[in-house]
């Protein structure tokens, strides 16, 4: 969804009528006698038709501003509803975390189909890599994030979760914080380029979910990554 409030749009009927209204009351003024001085525009204050014309202009303007206000109201209402919905979702999620703790729930998070075509899905879920012990984005990562950015912009209802991962070297606990930083770095890039914060969740798995359990440099490079998963469909 587009963040910026919509500009009130001028109703087309007023735009079309405006050039017509001016010559109309000029004609009326001439017809009733006492036409305007050449080059001067004088309001025909005593003409009922002119008054009617003016009234219709005013009415149109009033209708316009009412419509504009209604538009603003609905945008504000939508934003409020959005944030209420988000708060409700967060509260529900917190409640479910507490329930899951009691229930020995070890189920995987539910994967959601993106509702996109296969090329976009592949692009969106492509992994980005990191250097050893670093959370800053490489050039390749920035290019990949730009492609994801376009998909996110084109599908305003799409929501994703970024998961940060590390290779097995380094402290187990520190790697959880490093994974969090890696996910946050990717999120920050997307948010800085206009994606609403509420559309992107982050999580860290540290070294707990390696892609490649082999203890080689190649395996470690594959494990230092951010993964992207869809959490709310495009449509």
């Amino acid at each position, binding site marked *: 969804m587009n963040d910026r409030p919509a500009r009130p749009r001028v109703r087309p009927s007023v735009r079309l009528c405006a050039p017509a209204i001016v010559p109309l009351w000029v004609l009326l003024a001439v017809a009733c006698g006492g036409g305007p001085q050449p080059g001067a525009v004088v309001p025909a204050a005593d003409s009922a038709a002119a008054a009617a014309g003016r009234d219709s202009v005013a009415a149109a303007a009033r209708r316009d501003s009412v419509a504009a206000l209604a538009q603003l109201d609905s945008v504000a209402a939508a934003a409020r509803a959005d944030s209420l919905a988000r708060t409700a979702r967060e509260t529900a999620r917190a409640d*479910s975390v*507490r329930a899951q703790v009691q229930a020995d729930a070890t189920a995987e998070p539910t994967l959601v189909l993106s509702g996109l075509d296969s090329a976009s899905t592949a692009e969106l879920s492509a992994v980005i890599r990191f250097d050893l012990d670093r959370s800053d984005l490489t050039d390749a990562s920035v290019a990949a994030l730009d492609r994801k950015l376009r998909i996110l912009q084109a599908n305003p209802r799409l929501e994703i979760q970024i998961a940060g991962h590390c290779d097995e070297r*380094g*402290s187990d*606990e520190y790697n*959880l914080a*490093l994974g969090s930083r890696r996910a946050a770095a990717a999120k920050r890039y997307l948010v800085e380029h206009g994606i609403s914060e509420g559309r992107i969740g982050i999580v860290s798995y540290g070294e707990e979910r390696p892609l490649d359990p082999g203890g080689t440099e190649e395996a470690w490079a594959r494990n230092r990554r951010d993964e992207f998963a869809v959490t709310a469909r495009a449509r």
Partner: protein
Amino acid sequence: MSAGRGRGRENDALTAGRAALSLAAAACFGCLAVAPARAQDSIPPGGVRVGITYTPGTRPALVVATGTAAGLDSVRAILERDLDHSDQFELITPPGAPGRPGDAPDYRVYRAVGADLLVGLATVEGRSDAVEVQLHDVRRGSLVRRASVADAGGAGGRWAVHRAADEIVRWVTGRPGIAATRLLFVQNGRLWRVDADGAGLAPVPSAGRPTLSPTWSSDGRHIAYMAFVRSGQPIVIQDLQSGEREVVPTTEYGLNITPEFSRDGARLAFAHGTEAGTDIFVYEVARRCCVSRLTVGRFSDNLSPTWGPDGRRIAYISTRAGTPQLYWMDADGSDPEVLARFDFGATGQTNGPSWSPDGQSLAFHRDVGGTPQVFVLDVATRAVRQLTGTGRNEDPTWAPDGRHVCFVSTRSGTRQLWVLDVETGRVRPLTASDGARLPAWSPRLASP
């Protein structure tokens, strides 16, 4: 170690002289044999040694008598192993000619092998499951302490023997041993526990998988850990007896790691991570409310808090200067400063700090040439000492005696838990299977 053998030679020389003396004294002392034991029973609060003068730098030589009554062999084996693991004694192989159970020990034989102390076991008349543990001063040739160990053959049997071993250590050194303790650790994403002698390996049910960073409360009745559940990574406090679980408030969202209880059990420190970085928070456990923030990350990470003994200082890891290093601060977050100075170029990341129970040392692991090794820092002098060298060694946790440290090591080729005695340098393996991580040593436990 050579101390035992040297002592043997020294004792040989003394034995002749002492034999004459003790034979003469035996007549007079015979009637007083019971009295010293009773007098020793009124121990002043600080504990007292059993009246033996030790040469500084050596340890008393101890032998656990064989030839005990049938059925006490397993008790004897457990006891001997516990006393060995305390690293407070030179364990001497018992001489080969055991007397009959119930006989008074022949002190000359034990003196001949260089023992200072003798531990004997006897059944208790009329009670099939109770065992009496006796401590003899070999040089003086007398029984000095005895204690009855109830339920030694029953379900709580191992634990009763562990507690007896800890008592023996207390009689001799003034401070109890650590045989009646357990360790929690993580393997394959699940929580496990093991006794300090390596027995009793059992899973501990937890809220999610993986479960990481277990830690004990100082009453031994609660643990805290971080669990991955479907919708989050909360910190959970779990009652070991009832299994009841409580989610620490504010940990229903975000990354939550490295919990540790304060020594008085009133507070739990942990680290909470968001997009803005990871910071240290404190939860008022006793009051069941009120989470406060101690560090301001500004996009750095602050994690792994460990409490000082009086609850007034917290040491932790911070990346505010780049690589993770060891800092400390007041328990309200004020006055943070670097604690362990590191050698630029020589050592790298520091992680996994653990403050010793007596407050005098901090153990942690630090990268040396790309491989983590266990270090200990002396709080008073800030001197840092490297304790390990072979393989990868990390995540140290202190035993309640403040001289043993359990840590993860790959020195044998698999990733296992090992126990190190900081004073003597002796190392022993604790677990056998591959993949143990993140150990946490319990306080002394009254019951298993």
